[in-house]
C-alpha cells in the first residue's frame, strides 16, 4: 500500500503538487491522469524519491520513505519511463539484469530470470537476448523496459507515460500486456497518462489531477457515472461520456437474468462496446449471455445498453 499524506512540492512559488492525500491499495492498477502540468508525473516521482516533497509524508507499506536510503528504496520499485531509457551499450539481457546485478543476485538466478521475463513479455529469448536496443522497434524496446522494471520482482512498479511514445496498435498491444501481467503477477502498478481512455481502460482506480490537486479518486465506472466536477466531466469527454461508458461497463452489469435470444452468445465479462459491436454486425437487438463456464445466464438487449 502506498499512502500520500498532504504531500506538497513547490517549484519557486508554484505548487506542482498541492496537498495530495490518497492511498493506493496493494495489488491494484492505479492511473494518474490529467492535463500536462497537473502534477501527475511529479507525484509519481515523489513515490520513488526522485523528487523530495517540501511537506507531507509518503509511506510504502507503512514505512516513511524519507527515512530510507533512496537507492535501496528504488531498487525495490520498478520504474518505466516514456523515453524508455534502455542503456544503449548493453544488450537486452544486460539491460534486464540491471537491478538484480545491483542487488548482487547470483549469476545463475539472473540468467533464469532474464529468460522468464522475456517469456512474460512475449519476446523470444533466443532471438532477443543478445540484441542491442538500437536493433529493436519502439514496442520491443518498451517491452524490454517493462521487463527491466520487473526484473527484481518488486511489489510496486511505477510507469511514467509508458505508452506515450508508441504508435496506436503497439500501444494497444502493450496496454493489454500490462493488464495481463498485473493479473498474473499481482503487482501494485501506478502509471501516469494524459489519455483518459487509457486511464479508464487500464486503471482499477483512477486519480484525476488538476493544478497539483487531486480532483477525484475513484473507479472508472464511478468517474463516468458521477464526475466530481465540471473539470472531470469535460476531461472525461463531455458529450462523448456516455459512449465511453460502453467501453468501461461490463455486460454483467446491464443484462437481464433468465430469458433467451437467438444466435452467437457473448460473455458476461465482455464490455458493452463489444456487445454493441456484435449486435450491429449480426443485426440483432438481443444477445444471449454466457458465464465463464459457458452456461447461458441471461440476455442483453439494445435498450439495456442505452440505459444510463
Amino acid at each position, binding site marked *: 500500500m502506498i499512502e500520500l499524506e498532504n504531500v506538497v512540492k513547490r517549484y519557486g512559488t508554484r505548487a506542482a503538487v498541492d496537498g495530495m492525500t490518497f492511498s493506493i491499495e496493494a495489488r491494484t492498477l492505479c492511473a494518474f491522469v490529467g492535463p500536462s502540468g497537473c502534477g501527475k508525473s511529479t507525484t509519481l516521482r515523489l513515490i520513488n524519491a526522485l523528487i523530495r516533497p517540501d511537506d507531507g509524508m509518503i509511506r510504502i507499506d507503512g514505512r516513511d520513505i524519507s527515512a530510507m536510503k533512496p537507492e535501496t*528504496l*528504488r531498487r525495490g520499485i520498478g520504474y518505466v*519511463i516514456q523515453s*524508455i*531509457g*534502455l*542503456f*544503449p551499450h548493453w544488450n537486452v539481457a544486460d539491460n534486464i539484469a540491471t537491478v538484480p546485478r*545491483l542487488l548482487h543476485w547470483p549469476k545463475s538466478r539472473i540468467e533464469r530470470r532474464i529468460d522468464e521475463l522475456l517469456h512474460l513479455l512475449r519476446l523470444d529469448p533466443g532471438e532477443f537476448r*543478445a540484441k542491442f536496443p538500437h536493433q529493436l522497434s519502439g514496442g520491443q524496446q518498451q517491452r524490454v523496459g517493462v521487463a527491466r522494471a520487473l526484473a527484481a520482482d518488486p511489489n510496486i512498479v511505477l510507469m511514467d507515460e509508458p505508452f506515450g511514445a508508441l504508435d496506436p496498435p503497439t500501444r494497444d498491444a502493450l496496454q493489454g500486456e500490462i493488464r495481463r501481467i498485473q493479473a498474473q503477477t499481482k503487482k501494485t502498478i501506478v502509471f501516469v497518462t494524459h489519455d483518459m481512455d487509457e486511464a479508464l481502460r487500464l486503471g482499477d482506480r483512477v486519480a484525476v489531477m488538476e493544478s497539483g490537486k487531486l480532483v477525484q479518486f475513484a473507479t472508472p465506472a464511478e468517474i463516468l457515472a458521477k464526475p466530481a466536477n465540471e473539470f472531470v466531466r469535460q476531461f472525461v469527454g463531455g458529450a462523448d461520456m456516455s459512449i465511453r461508458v460502453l467501453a468501461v461497463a461490463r455486460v454483467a452489469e446491464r443484462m437481464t437474468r433468465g430469458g433467451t435470444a437467438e444466435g452467437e452468445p457473448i460473455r458476461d465479462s465482455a464490455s458493452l462496446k463489444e456487445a454493441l459491436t456484435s449486435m450491429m454486425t449480426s443485426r440483432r437487438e438481443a444477445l444471449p449471455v454466457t458465464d465463464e463456464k459457458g452456461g447461458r445466464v441471461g440476455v442483453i438487449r439494445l435498450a439495456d445498453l442505452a440505459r444510463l
Partner: protein
Amino acid sequence: MTRALGISRLTFALAFALVALVLALPHLQAPMHWLFPEVERPVYERASFVELVASHLALVLASSAAATLVGVSAGIFATRQSGAEFAPLINAIAAIGQTFPPVAVLAISVPLLGYGGPPTLVALAVYAALPITENTIAGLTSVSRDAKDAAEGLGFSRLRLLADVELPLALPIILTGIRIAVIINIGTATIGSTIGALTLGSPIIEGLSASNPAYVLEGAAVVALLAILIDRLFEDGVHWARRRSGTLTSDAHAVA
C-alpha cells in the same frame, strides 16, 4: 577492414614499417650519402634511433597519462552537481588554453623548471590536459538524459551511474580527446630537444643548426611514421569503444 584483437591490418603494417625503418637507419650510410652528397656524415649517430624512439615515446606516454588523469578528473568534476559552478570556468580554460601554441607552453616552462626532460614533460602534460578536459565534458554531457533518468530511477548510486553508464557512453568522445592530445604531444615533444630533452627532435634540431638536411629528414620521417601509427591505434580504439557503447550501428555486432 579485417581486424585481429581489434587492431587493423593497416596498423600492423605501419608498426612493421616503423620498426624496420628504425633498425635499418644505421645501415643506410650509402643511400643517404647518395641523396645528400654534400654532407659528410649523412646518418645521425649521436644517439641510436632505438634510443630516441624510446625516450620520445616515454615522454609522450608519461605526459599523456598524466594529462588523461588530470583532464578526465576535471571533466568529471565539472559535470557533477557539486562542480557545476566551476564548469564554465573549466571549459573556458580548456578552450582558451588551446589557442596558445604548444611551443609557447614549452618556452614558459623553461624559466620555471629549467632544461631537460622534466620541463618538457610538464609542458606536454599541461597542454594535453586541455583537449582531454574539453572532450570529457562534451562526452559526459552528451550521455542521453533518458539513460541517466532510468538509471537513477532503478536505484544506481552516483558512482555506479558514472562507472556503468556515463563513462562507457562518453568513452568514444573522451578517447578522441586523448587522441588529439597524444598526436599533438608526439609533434611537440620534438621541440623538447631545443631545451635539452632527448627526443626524435634531437636529429632535427641538430640538422637545422648544422645545415645537415639528412638529419632533419631522418628525424622527421621517424616522427611522422610514429604519429601515423599511434593515430591508427586510436582509430582502432575508438572503433572498439563505439562498438561497445552501442553508438556504432551497421556491421558492428556481427563482429562483437
